[in-house]
């Protein structure tokens, strides 16, 4: 049975590890280290990768791979992006400049975005509504990227599944034949 890889990226604390844990059918593999960066109130941070799996309706397996978020780990990004069919960019709207954060990942994964499906998921919009989704769409358009931008709470399984659906729809539109997630 075919296997495919979807990559989750975004800033530290945006919810990459949480998103994968929310939908993975197997216990996720994690590489978390004690966080010493005092600018982010978070006890641990991913320094290598996260890994999970989910089965599609057709029996195909989606491998869910999470990157470290910080730019000092950017050397891991192309390694993990290799062979991915889709990219989920998680944005934490409570951070000081979420649009600048988006730029980092649009640039860091430009090669993958040009070839694969992409969706941008904006988190913590309930408490931090600005910038709005339109601002992200405009920013992406200015960078020549056209992909869905949606609000998401990645602690909710349904929200994460919706992100996968959006990726799979793009792949189907391009002629792929992946079934949707159950």
């Amino acid at each position, binding site marked *: 049975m075919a296997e495919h890889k979807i990559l989750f990226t975004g800033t530290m604390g945006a919810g990459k590890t949480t998103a994968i844990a929310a939908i993975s059918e197997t216990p996720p593999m994690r590489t978390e280290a004690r966080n010493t*960066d005092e600018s982010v109130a978070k006890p641990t941070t991913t320094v290598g990768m996260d890994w999970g799996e989910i089965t599609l309706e057709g029996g195909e397996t989606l491998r869910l791979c999470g990157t470290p978020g910080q730019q*000092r780990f950017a050397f891991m990004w192309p390694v993990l992006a290799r062979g991915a069919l889709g990219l989920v960019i998680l944005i934490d709207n409570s951070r000081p400049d979420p649009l600048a954060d988006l730029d980092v990942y649009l640039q860091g994964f430009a090669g993958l975005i040009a070839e694969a499906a992409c969706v941008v998921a904006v988190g913590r919009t309930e408490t931090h509504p600005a910038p709005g989704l339109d601002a992200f769409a405009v920013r992406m358009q200015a960078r020549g990227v056209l992909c869905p931008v949606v609000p998401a709470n990645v602690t909710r399984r349904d929200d994460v599944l919706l992100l996968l659906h959006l990726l799979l729809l793009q792949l189907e539109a391009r002629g792929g034949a992946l079934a949707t997630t159950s």
Partner: protein
Amino acid sequence: MNISPRVRKAAEAAVDRLMRDLRGIKSVVIATEDGFEVAGHMEGQAQLARMSALASSLSALGALAGEEGHVGICEALTIEAAHGQLLMVRARHDEVDLIVCIVASRDAVIGQVLYTAKQVARTLRQA
């Protein structure tokens, strides 16, 4: 990053010892588990930062491989390359977990490097 002067001083002393006592050492970095440099001997600050992050990722992947392979906790990781070796040893400290990362040329006696690196890690744990 909040590292106490005591730990930082111990890390600097550890770097000095490794550079002084071992033959064929190209560079030494002592980094936090999450990839920030604490002390090091390497050409250029940027290289120090990159190697610290790299040591963090590799060490975490080594730990994951140990778990998944059911062979226990990974305390040391060795990478053999065409012109030398990279060696990473963990030093678990109450305040901050550290990684000792050594880049050695083919001239280095790798058993000696590993032995000394583990001694240094033990000293750091008690700092």
